[in-house]
């Protein structure tokens, strides 16, 4: 009637993206209970499932104190470089564990963007877009999960959410957006606790009687609001699975051996990485684990050493562990933040925001490890070789996961929005 914009709902349906619930799961039939669906995470299903883990360094990690050390120049801030498992590749001194698995990691030293504000850059590196009022760009996790589901639908009995975000502390500013509620990340604030409000308060049988009673009492109203009633009923059923499904044991780190916990080390980030591995094993498509605190405007050297101490061991353990379990080839692991830090150390011993050149690390998902892409000049300021933009990076993620980056969704304004805004994959990372 008014404009030529396609109906968004029908478009989403065409894309196979339901409005309610998680994944491509079919309806939850009355009375089917929560019985034998625990088979949803049967071992055979896991290995073939593509997945992605994002290790997000909130605040903007210094490239010089991580994977692009500059020991020969004063801009290097006095941080030493150490040899890695790959001759000729050096990491900053705080990353001995990652150095030991460098043969499975690829470092991009020529990331570049123009956005130097935390919220806007965080949005950019999470969605591939700068924020625009009224356009709800989906976050990488929702993109990946929704698109993987169109390639290989998860088991229709899958009880777990397809996207989990750990430790974002309410900072997360991007969600499923236009893709809809089905792909909304489930937020976990403390990886050592179950998700909020999922600890059963009444026995499963009574809970089911309550659901039945609700459905019967709702009957009259459901006649008047059939769609709303059906949607809400589906939500009650999906949410009930989070309370009573045996698959929820995936969230329980007590299921891990002491040896596994020791491998990952101590701390929230270590627990988050271990939980990420468990969730991927149980069929979750995308897990983000956040380490906050990289906004080192003062005392950069001490701060980054401390932060690396939190991240190095779990990062390396995750790569090893996924490899040992045969999951690394199908699981893309990403280490990145929203921008890098100024080459010059400021008078307070800090480094400020620097989107012009920074770094990111990829592993698994078909990425050939043991290599470095791109380079800056000797001062660490300008990119000399192979600049990689944010759309290039997102195209690279899509390439690794077998996702078509040109799929379009339509914003409520009628504006078509590509999953990834142009860009080319960094092909030298593959093959």
């Amino acid at each position, binding site marked *: 009637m008014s404009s030529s914009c396609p109906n968004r709902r029908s478009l989403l349906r065409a894309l196979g993206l339901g409005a309610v619930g998680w994944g491509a799961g079919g309806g939850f039939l009355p009375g089917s209970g929560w019985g034998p669906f625990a088979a949803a995470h049967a071992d055979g299903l896991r290995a073939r499932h593509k997945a992605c883990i994002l290790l997000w360094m909130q605040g903007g990690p210094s490239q010089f104190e991580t994977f692009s050390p500059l020991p020969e120049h004063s801009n290097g801030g006095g941080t030493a470089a150490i040899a890695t498992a790959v001759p000729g590749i050096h990491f900053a001194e705080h990353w001995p564990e990652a150095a030991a698995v460098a043969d499975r990691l690829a470092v991009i030293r020529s990331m570049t963007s123009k956005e130097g504000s935390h919220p806007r850059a965080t949005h950019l590196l999470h969605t591939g877009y700068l924020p625009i*009022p009224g356009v709800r760009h989906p976050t990488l996790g929702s993109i990946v999960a929704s698109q993987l589901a169109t390639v290989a639908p998860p088991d229709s009995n899958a009880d777990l*959410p397809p996207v989990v975000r750990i430790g974002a502390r309410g900072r997360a500013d991007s969600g499923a957006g236009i893709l809809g509620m089905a792909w909304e990340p489930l937020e976990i604030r403390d990886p050592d606790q179950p998700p*909020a*409000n999922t600890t059963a308060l009444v026995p499963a049988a009574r809970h089911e009687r309550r659901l039945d009673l609700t459905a019967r009492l709702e009957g009259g109203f459901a006649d*008047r609001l059939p769609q709303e009633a059906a949607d809400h009923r589906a*939500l009650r059923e999906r*949410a009930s699975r989070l309370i009573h499904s045996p698959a929820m044991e995936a969230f329980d780190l007590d299921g891990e051996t002491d040896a596994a916990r020791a491998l990952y080390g101590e701390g929230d980030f270590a627990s988050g990485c271990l939980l990420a591995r468990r969730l991927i094993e149980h069929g979750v498509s995308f897990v983000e684990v956040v380490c*906050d605190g990289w906004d080192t*405007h003062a005392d950069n050297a001490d701060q980054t050493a401390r932060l690396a101490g939190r991240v190095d061991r779990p990062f390396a353990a995750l790569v090893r562990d996924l490899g040992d379990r045969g999951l690394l080839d199908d699981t893309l692991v990403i280490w990145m933040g929203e921008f890098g830090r100024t080459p010059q150390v400021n008078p307070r011993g800090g480094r400020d925001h620097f989107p012009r050149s920074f770094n990111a690390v990829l592993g698994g998902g078909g990425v050939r490890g043991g290599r470095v892409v791109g380079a800056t000049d000797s001062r660490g300021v300008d990119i000399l070789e192979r600049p990689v933009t944010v759309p290039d990076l997102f195209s690279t993620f899509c390439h690794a996961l077998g996702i078509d980056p040109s799929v379009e969704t339509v914003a409520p304004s009628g*504006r078509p929005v590509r999953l990834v805004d142009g860009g080319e994959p960094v092909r030298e990372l593959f093959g």
Partner: protein
Amino acid sequence: MRVSAADSGLSARGGLVTAGILSLLLQILLQILLQLLILGFAPAPRGHGAEPPGAGGLTASPEPAPPAADDLFLRRIHLDLAGRQPTFAETEAFRADPSPGKRAAAVDRLLAAPAWSQTWARYFRDVILFRRTDPRAAFMQAPLETFLTAELAADASWGTIARDLITATGAPGEQGETAIIIAQMGETADIAAEVSRIFLGIQLQCAQCHDHFTDRWKREQFHELAAFFPRIAIRPTGGQGPDRFEVVSFDVQPRAVRGRKPPDNPRRGDLEHEMPDRDDPSLPGTVMAPRFFLTGQSLPLGTPDLQRRHAIAEWITSPDNPWFARAIVNRLWAELVGEGFYPAIDDLGPDRIPQEPERLADLAAGFAAHDSDLRWLFRAICISPEYGRGSRSRSSPARAGFAANCPQRLRADQLFTQLLDTLGVDEARAAQAAARRRGAAGPVPAPAEELMARYRLGTPRNLFGQVFGYDPSLPREEIVGSIPQTLVFMNGPQVAAALDGHRPGTLLGRLLRTESDDAAVTTALYYRALARAPSADELATCLTHVNSAGDREEGFEDVFWALINSVEFLHRP
């Protein structure tokens, strides 16, 4: 591209470290609070009683639906105008009132009450802040709500409110009217797009990069509108929370500091707006003079900031500009009747065709003639036959002429109030209980506690809004529930505690002790949750369930649980 400005006074960095630490503390605190989710309950007493069943709404028929039954109308009008359900006493009195003018009288009574100002202040707060591109603007919720509540209570016209929001300067914590600017953190193009969307219902932002595909707007027109706003600057003050910023005019170009090229920072402000070169954004853009795309009114380059903003505010809110009235009429009609004249709440414009154009034109003309008086507009809509009709599902095929009223999913504030009222929980006591639990969870740094209190962050209502809030400008069929929301209602410890029939302090516990007639208890719970009596079938279903449950308390807990977890509870009828 931006005019270079190297004023270190406007540099963002200085205050960021301390502000960053504090904001981290707040994040941690919010995290703790969310863990303690969500409602601290301290029950308060309220009456109940038994009454015959009330009629519901009506559905599909080719004719317009007949007027809604009294109970349904009263629940609708209370949720819409007071943000809460009617009490049992109000429902009874309304039903007993034989006067033919009782519906209009109820509308007038509710429009005169303070709850109307607060309810709609919260609504417009969400209209503005759900489009924030900077998450830190969440701090603006309380200042903006305070500003809007005061304006609405003082009978400020929509024109006055628009002018205040467009021309705002000052400290965000004190001046809630800076909210649109803070929500976009001073970004010139985003402020222009939001002003046009909210006050004109015209979405120009597509034209930021290219001529609009479906509408007549040219790229130049967007950037000419943006040219009213480049001189807005957000200056760091060294304070905390919203106090760390101040909205000022940037009218004097400071001397560039030699050798320092500042990073691109939208907060700094520019003397003039430039339309970027489309082919190469790194090239200098075209300097644009301020010009209003609807009327052609313009200002010369060099005009000071406040002069620009006052001019565009006058031109937008002028009675001669029909889009100012149409945008708000369409928005409020869509909220209250359930579907708008235009398919989108905030995407109108001369290239879109409304349904019932004469009705729209009449209301818009009346609104303009009444000096954009919002209470006049609410009254006109709420006493209209369209508003008063029975309900139809949004998903059933629409028919011309607003044949029925479409039920609306409750906004977070309405739902929170209704949940507390249903469970007999007092909000102030719930907030105290939440604060006590917060204290018990560990020491809270005093400055953080003070900021949280001042900005009403971490209150049960605020936390509830974080889980249940939605952007009220989105098409309503896109607003679906979420699993975390559903978990709060089904399995949240605080809701469960308030439902406990064995505890003497809860509403249900008291009711079961004082009322031995199970039918009366059932009816009371229905009035509590849904502001109506149960039908005969519903009553029978409940009584059968209670009898088969074995334990009377448990049986009624299940009934109460079922009512608040029903789709009816979530909707304004």
